[in-house]
């Protein structure tokens, strides 16, 4: 309910100062696109975190299959998206990369999965860090279960996984959020 509590914390005091956006080098991984909001390194970090939060399984889609990073990028580009929340999401990338450098000497996308879990658990122990991760989980699940017109859930893959009937009528491109009532 109190979606803004985390903003009052300001920074991950327990973990270090940094609101700086670490220029993570995603070398080694396949090149990632940059988006409307996320730079290429930010995109890579977010994609790695999302992959960990909502992993792919043989019989169940994960963040990768539902295009969670592209979905988040598009969401952040909404002019009505809360600018403070946007700032937090971007700041969180910097915090994580700083810790990753400090502990592993590597950008987060290059850290082994078991070590990623340790790092994210540590982050989740602070109030701001937990809320950063909580937000990312929420947008992953939006990507999984929103209409494919928003850029996630291709072909309704998330709905199929959960045997979910999204109801009729489905939106058309001119009726989705951001366009409806604007014509």
């Amino acid at each position, binding site marked *: 309910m109190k979606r803004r509590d985390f903003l009052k914390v300001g920074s991950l005091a327990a973990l270090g100062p940094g609101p700086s956006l670490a220029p993570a080098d995603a070398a080694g991984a396949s090149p990632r696109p940059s988006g409307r909001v996320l730079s290429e390194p930010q995109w890579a970090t977010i994609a790695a975190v999302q992959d960990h939060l909502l992993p792919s399984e043989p019989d169940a889609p994960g963040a990768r299959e539902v295009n969670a990073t592209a979905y988040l990028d598009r969401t952040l580009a909404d002019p009505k998206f809360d600018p403070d929340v946007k700032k937090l999401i971007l700041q969180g990338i910097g915090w994580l990369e700083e810790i990753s450098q400090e502990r592993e000497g590597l950008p987060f996308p290059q850290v082994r999965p078991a070590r990623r879990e340790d790092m994210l658990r540590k982050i989740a122990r602070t109030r701001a860090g937990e809320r950063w991760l909580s937000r990312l989980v929420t947008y992953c699940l939006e990507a999984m279960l929103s209409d494919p017109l928003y850029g996630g859930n291709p072909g309704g893959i998330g709905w199929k996984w959960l045997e979910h009937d999204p109801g009729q009528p489905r939106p058309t491109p001119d009726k989705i959020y951001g366009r409806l*009532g604007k014509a």
Partner: protein
Amino acid sequence: MSRDFDVCVIGSGAGGGPVALTLAEAGYSVVVLEKGPWLDEKDFCKDEIASCRRSTYTPSLLDERHVLEQRNDEGVWEAESTLDSGWDWWNGNCVGGASNFMSGFFHRMKPDDFRLLSAFGPVEGANLADWPIGYENLEPWYDLVEHRVGVSGKLVEHPYQEPRSSADFPYPPTVEHPISGLIDKACRDLGYSSFPVPRAVLSRPALGRNSCLYTNYCGSYGCSSGAKGSSRAALLKQAIRTGHCRVRPHCMVSRILSDQKGRIDAVEYIDGDGARKRLDAEIYVVACQAIETTRLLLMSTGPRYPNGLANSNGQVGRNLIFSAGGIGTGDILYADLAPDLASSLKVRGPFVNRALQDWYFYSDPETGERRKGGTIEFLFRHANAISQAVAQKWSSDDNLVWGKPLKDRIKTYFTSARHLRFEVFNDWTPVDDCFVSLDPREKDKWGMPVARIRLGYHPRDLEVGRFLSRKAVTVLERLGAKNISWNVSGSPPQNLVAGGCRFGTDPKASVLDLDCKAHEIDNLYVTDGSFMPTGGSVPFTWTIYANAFRVADRILEALGGPSDKGS
């Protein structure tokens, strides 16, 4: 002097629609000013992002917000903007207002709801007041609403069934889910009288509208078939057909202007292009939903009204009420059921439509004193997928869950059970600490002060809510539900709001007279839920519709009866 319109209605929801329709049908020229867009059946899709997760039918909180005052653990009132809390208090700003997004559980108030003070005596710390009219005065309009808005249902006698002038509902009940029969059986076993819930949803094509399509997404969603009896679908469309009613979307009324003599002589509004405009009418009707109605009256100071319109006695905004109560859920696990039954419960679309009013009035188990109780409504958890999935991210000990454990929780939640829910509706006892004022600092995007709402409640409301919740739990238990949990709190449902401009006979203690005309202003009426001194233990919409039709007839009389210009 020629005026732009005979009647200007501010707000197009449940309070505005009946007035526009009645007066347009009588041949008077009516303009309805609505701050939001004009969306229609073709615009409403089953899109959770647009309907429930972003501000599509409501303003962005970056542009317009509220300030809420809540008592903290030390008993001190703390104010927080809804932008900061994320607790959005807008309820549908578009043509038809919040009635577009209601579930349409339609219940009438009971005769004793109109006289709580005399029937039950004063409550310490509460501002109880009898209504200046009785149930019998409103009954003809409750009946009218059944026919004009379209209410489907089936009369089944139960202990507190209110008297009715029609034998039964004009439309048969909507299609019911197999769970409804199971709820009936469980209630019979327990000696309770479950009954079918009347719905403002058409069960067959009528009134120029389609029947319900049973798509499993009703409350919080605009209706794509026209079956839901919103003010837009049921009333404004017909008003427009008379040729006497114009609905103007994207028109935010910023001020109601009054002259030296104290009469309203114009409204000032901001149109979709940001231009400030004025129009005038013989009669002005405010129906912006309780909180915004108070805000507009308080903002509309004038030479005779330094404290805002109709507020010489300082009563505007006071005694705001909500629906008190709580919610609970239980899981009907498919694994506990025979395969046939399990698959019948997986059916999506038909309605549960079951309620209990066995304890609408009850004897206190300890004192034996007769008390006011309320309504228990049964329904399935809302079909929204994202909100159900997101709710799984917190473990029972409040830690964030992710990875495979999160996916397993989500999969189990979606595929192993039906989640049966109950909602308790009981009276929100009016108290001094529940009121609306203008915030001294926060402004909306036009520079106008936003509404500040103090959210005090009477502790007795929680006792009643808990009493009813425990009764509801016995039904879930009887049904074999697992993981039963419930919660009653003083945190109000922002979509079930009324009060703030009480009607009454005493001009010192109320804002409106019996006709919902401002005591101190001859051409200003308020027809949304603001007039209600107490709210009953049911959702308010049917009562708001009925009263607005009643007041529309009074306005028609004030205008001199049906106009020559009509038909």
